[in-house]
């Protein structure tokens, strides 16, 4: 494991582990966030029959960097009547919640920030951390409407945790372990062994599992869209609604942190779905390294597959954003409690029964 390798290299276990946990931040999150914004603008443009940014840099690739430079040099305004400590720390709390989840994601068979046995549980718990950050942001703005927006957003995130967790519990019931690294390892060789298609289970049970697992994935995907505040659940960020949302009072770099946190969150939920349902870092059909006989190529390929599948799901989230209109707040809540939660429960019961029949 890379964390052990780094611990050996530095001679100090803590330093080694610290560096191995910080690696995703610099090697992946920052470039990913930059290019996710660019990809969103380009994808939305292509879907709308237009071109999108193409002036800054070749094909517009440096557009986000230009935007970040612009945001950095903006005046950092803190409203006079705002609660200053809360106001300043809120974006960082949200980002911390997102970033902490990266520690338990299995990027490849040799690299995982922290190989805890409670991987899934830890990630779901830590991604709820952003709720506190949103409440802080809404309250500290000292603005009636940003408080409304923050409370709506909190209600949305907290409610959609329930179907998301039920779907995960359904999957875990089939899998049997909460350790993300083991979950990825169990889905070996062909894509036929991926959990969404029943997993590496023998016999008739595998076919019985396919439909409940697909339903569990769909419920988890919809619930995670709501967790990330993406359309059709983006009431907190909507510009044409009356209430402007919890990040109205923010300018400059703090505003950029909110967006970094949003795109980071999008990747985290995609990565969880990929690890649990779509095979994690396993390739759908054998490894190039195996056929060529180069052993050190295999972990690199695995990282590539993991990031590729995660990005594909992020692209699907962007695709949904530009297709669907927005749900109203009460419809959002009714969707969660009246539709997703009962379906998730029934799914859980069915999977439980199938698991018992052996």
């Amino acid at each position, binding site marked *: 494991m890379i964390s052990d390798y780094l611990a050996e290299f530095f001679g100090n276990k803590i330093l080694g582990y610290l560096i191995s946990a910080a690696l995703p931040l610099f090697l992946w999150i920052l470039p990913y966030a930059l290019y996710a914004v660019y990809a969103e603008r380009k*994808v939305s443009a*292509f*879907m*709308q*029959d*237009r*071109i999108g940014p*193409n002036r800054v840099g070749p094909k517009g690739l440096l557009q986000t960097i230009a935007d970040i430079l612009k945001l950095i040099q903006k005046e950092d305004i803190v409203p006079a009547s705002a609660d200053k400590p809360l106001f300043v720390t809120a974006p960082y709390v949200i980002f911390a919640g997102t970033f902490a989840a990266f520690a338990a994601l299995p990027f490849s068979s040799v690299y995982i920030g922290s190989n805890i046995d409670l991987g899934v549980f830890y990630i779901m718990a830590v991604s709820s951390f952003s709720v506190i950050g949103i409440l802080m942001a809404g309250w500290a703005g000292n603005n009636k409407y940003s408080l409304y927006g923050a409370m709506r957003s909190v209600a949305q995130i907290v409610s959609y945790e329930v179907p998301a967790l039920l779907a995960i519990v359904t999957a875990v019931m089939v899998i049997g372990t909460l350790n993300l690294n083991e979950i990825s390892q169990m889905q070996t060789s062909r894509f036929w062994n991926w959990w969404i298609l029943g997993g590496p289970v023998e016999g008739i049970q595998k076919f019985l599992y396919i439909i409940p697992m697909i339903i569990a994935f769909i419920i988890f995907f919809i619930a995670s869209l709501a967790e990330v505040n993406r359309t059709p659940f983006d009431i907190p960020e909507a510009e044409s609604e009356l209430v402007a949302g919890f990040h109205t009072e923010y300018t400059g770099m703090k505003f950029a942190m909110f967006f970094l946190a949003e795109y980071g969150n999008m990747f985290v939920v995609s990565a969880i779905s990929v690890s649990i349902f779509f095979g994690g870092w396993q390739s759908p059909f054998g490894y190039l390294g195996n056929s060529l006989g180069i052993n050190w190529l295999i972990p690199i390929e695995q990282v590539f597959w993991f990031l590729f599948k995660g990005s594909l799901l992020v692209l699907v989230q962007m*695709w*949904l954003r*530009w*297709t*669907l209109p927005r749900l109203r707040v009460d419809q959002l809540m009714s969707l969660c409690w009246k*539709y997703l939660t009962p*379906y998730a429960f029934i799914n859980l019961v069915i999977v439980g029964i199938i698991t018992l029949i052996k």
Partner: protein
Amino acid sequence: MKEYLRNTWLGIYTVLVGMKVTLSHLFKPKVTIQYPDVRIQLPERARNRLYVNIDDCIGCDQCSRACPVDCIEIETVKAVPGENLGITSNGKRKALWVTKFDIDIAKCCYCGLCVYPCPTECIWMTDVYEFSEYRREDLIYHFSNLSPEEALQKKLNYKKFEEEKARQKAAQATTANPNPKQDSGNEN
């Protein structure tokens, strides 16, 4: 219960149909152009900036009267007989010096009503649409080709001519009628 299941089915189905539509557009050709580098050719009837061919203008003031927003200002001076101003391209003889022909293109509403009454077709709308200026005074277009001194000269010429004519008329009246008071008394 049936309503509930129907709602679920419709929700999933219509979302998928919508996604198919946007996906198909991902691969269609783009309809936008890169504007400053590429410009679309405007059709021949395009109504943009006005242009006046001052050599053809006979100073009839029709365009100024047709304008709904009064953006054309014309001042003319009658020509002294004997001065040859030339003829326009469709054969009309010019009899007026156009000393001022100003169009305030910032006021113009681009309706094209000034184009039709012109007897010599000397005012028309071109297809130029990129004519922004830094100062508002630059947006008043001066089409007259007489410099201020020449314009003043023409005015003085005409004034002199008028005075000459008036004097001649007065002189003629006295020679034809040496005793105007008696005549008018007799006719009474």
